[in-house]
């Protein structure tokens, strides 16, 4: 079932809350409503749920206006899950899930096999079958929220509306719940969810609508909506936008106002990859001008480097390092006062980064954990050989990041 919202406006006590909202959600699609508190996410959701009546414009379900559905008709097509709600009495899980059948049953009608099946299925999909006979009060927050989702699913709706369904839930329960919702989207449900967690929304929603002061400030795929500029405009917050290295989803991190730029102590180049440079970059970024390479945009070090404003030599992922990137890398090494080789695993793909070090004055190179190279060597011994060669030429072996910092300071002092 398709949701279309046309020029929807809503006011509360004469104060406009929503204005000029146009949205479309198809079967098998999920839309996340995001935006700062008070931007109108929940109000919009409740207009779609039919509990609030728009002041202007309208919501259509498959081109029929929402208000033309009777409450029961609507409840057979549309299920709603909100932030955790209190249950009046200690009902058992099954008794609660059976409530989802109310819109399908006449007042004097008994539950039939069909209803029992819908209830069982809803409990299975939400993985609460094993608690069926337990009172709701004995369940954890995450389990309870799954019960409320099961009630909505027992309605056998075509549309699912979720209002901050994961608020107050531990992170494991958040993911569990969202995974179940995603499965329903694959089954063809149209899902609209108000979420304040931008990263959760980016990962689980097909599209996003960013609301700001009751209007849609941006609409589109997560990477189109969650730009640093959009977020500055709506939330007034500085963020770094990148991609989650594990999922590839758009990922947002707070970027607090840049710390007072201190006198830089010099320029360092870092050879890292696979997360090996995270600690070093964090430790040194505030005191040195940093560059790093060669990295690919899928590397977790890439996110950190971008976040810290490290200058980069970049190359495409899953491919040998390009000649262009290699040269840029060497140029940056030469320009640097020192080069730091992190505990990178080497394979044929990035061995050139190690080879590049050989062209430098050996004393400029600092090798972190050189003894561990054998375990990180996937080149059949070539990487190990290169590291030993560097050490033989006088490269500095370093045990830890702390030691590295000391050595760097000593070197500086010696220079002065």
């Amino acid at each position, binding site marked *: 079932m398709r949701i279309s919202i046309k020029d929807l406006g809503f006011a509360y006590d004469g104060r406009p809350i929503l204005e000029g909202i146009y949205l479309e959600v198809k079967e098998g699609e999920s839309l996340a409503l995001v935006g700062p508190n008070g931007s109108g996410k929940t109000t919009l959701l409740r207009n779609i*749920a039919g*509990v609030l009546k728009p002041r202007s414009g309208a919501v259509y379900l498959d081109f029929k206006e929402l208000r033309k559905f*009777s*409450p*029961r*008709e*609507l*409840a*057979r097509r*549309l*299920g*709603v899950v*909100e932030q955790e*709600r*209190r*249950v*009046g*009495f*200690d*009902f*058992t899980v099954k*008794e*609660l899930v059976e*409530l*989802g059948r*109310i*819109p399908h*049953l006449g*007042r*004097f009608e008994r539950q039939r096999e069909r209803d029992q099946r819908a209830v069982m299925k809803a409990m299975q999909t939400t993985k609460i079958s094993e608690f069926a006979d337990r*009172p709701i009060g004995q369940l954890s927050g995450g389990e309870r929220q799954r019960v409320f989702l099961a*009630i*909505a699913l027992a*309605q056998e709706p075509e549309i699912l509306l979720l209002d901050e369904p994961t608020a107050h839930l531990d992170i494991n329960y958040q993911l569990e719940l969202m995974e179940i919702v995603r499965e329903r989207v694959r089954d063809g449900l149209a899902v609209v969810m108000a979420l304040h967690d931008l990263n959760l929304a980016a990962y689980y929603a097909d599209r996003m609508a960013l609301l700001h002061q009751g209007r849609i400030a941006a609409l589109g795929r997560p990477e189109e909506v969650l730009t640093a500029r959009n977020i500055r405009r709506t939330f007034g917050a500085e963020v770094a936008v990148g991609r989650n290295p594990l999922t590839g989803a758009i990922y947002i991190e707070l970027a607090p106002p840049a710390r007072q730029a201190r006198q830089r102590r010099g320029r360092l180049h870092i050879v890292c990859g696979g997360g090996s440079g995270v600690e070093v970059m964090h430790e040194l970024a505030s005191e040195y001008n940093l560059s790093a390479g060669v990295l690919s945009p899928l590397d977790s070090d890439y996110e950190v480097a971008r976040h810290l404003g490290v200058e980069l030599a970049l190359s495409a992922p899953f491919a040998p390092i390009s000649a262009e990137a290699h040269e840029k890398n060497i140029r940056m090494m030469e320009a640097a006062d020192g080069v730091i080789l992190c505990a990178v695993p080497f394979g044929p793909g990035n061995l050139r980064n190690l080879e590049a070090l050989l062209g430098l004055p050996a004393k400029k190179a600092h090798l972190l954990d050189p003894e561990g190279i054998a375990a990180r060597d996937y080149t059949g011994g070539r990487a190990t050989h290169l590291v030993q060669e560097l050490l033989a030429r006088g490269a500095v072996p370093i045990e830890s990041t702390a030691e590295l910092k000391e050595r760097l300071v000593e070197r500086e002092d010696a220079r002065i």
Partner: protein
Amino acid sequence: MDRKFFFAILAGLVAVTLIGGVAIGPVKIPLGESLALLVHLKGDGSLYGLIIHRIRLPRVLLGFLVGLSLALSGGVMQGLFRNPLASPYVLGIASGASAGAAAVIALGFRSPLALPLGAFLGGSLAVVLVYRLAQTRAGRSSGYGLILAGVALGAAFSAITSLSIFLTAGDRRLSEILFWTMGGLGRANWRYLWAMLPVALLGTLFLQATARELNALALGEEGAQYLGIEPERLKKVLLAVTTLLTSTAVAFAGTIGFVGLITPHAMRLILGPDHRVLLPATALAGGVFLVWADAAARTVLSPAELPLGIITALVGAPFFLYLLRTRLGVSG
């Protein structure tokens, strides 16, 4: 507890109660003879037959229906307000009905139906007023608002009752009002029973049919709304039906407390909160409880008869306090 088993026990209890209620009384009639006379529908014209058929049978049946109506109304109110402390009396029904009845007596109306009618009008008036007073601008009624308005309005109605008592001091009408405010089945007769029966029967059937929606209200009014229920309408209908049941019961038996509070509570402890089973169990248990309470009222100080409200309060209050301390974790 297994529900089928529990209902089997309850059904047996109802049968035992109806027979026992008829067999017990200030005039000792052997059980065998009571049974024989019960089977004889019209009685045999003997004194025992007269006692059983004219006095005890209508009284026991009326008592059963009154208990059933009050308990059921209490169960519905508790579900409606999601509050186990709600009872048919919280919305001022009892005090309204009392005031109505007291006014009728004090004003000297003598028609036999004037008293029930006055009580019924008083009770209904109270609920309508409370409902209107508790309504918010948005046209919704909040549970708290209803209960608070009920308490306040109840006090006003009690003043009318007290005024009636004051005005009739030294009069025969005084004891009539007093007896009525303390509740009792002493006036029971077949006419009352026939008036009560359809109300109790239809009310019970109707309320039973709303059990599922009452369950849904446990999710809050909005949660219920998402299931296609119109909570405000449901609330109005349920209030109307419970008011009808309660004020009819009050009209024929005076104000009898605690049945509507304790019975649903006790049944919920045994069966859980699912109104589909809770309501019928509460109805039957309420009937059983009131018949035995009335049997006690008739026999404890025999030949004098205690007001029924005293018995139910004496049994109900300690039970309630026990529940309060064990269930709500009140210590002290």
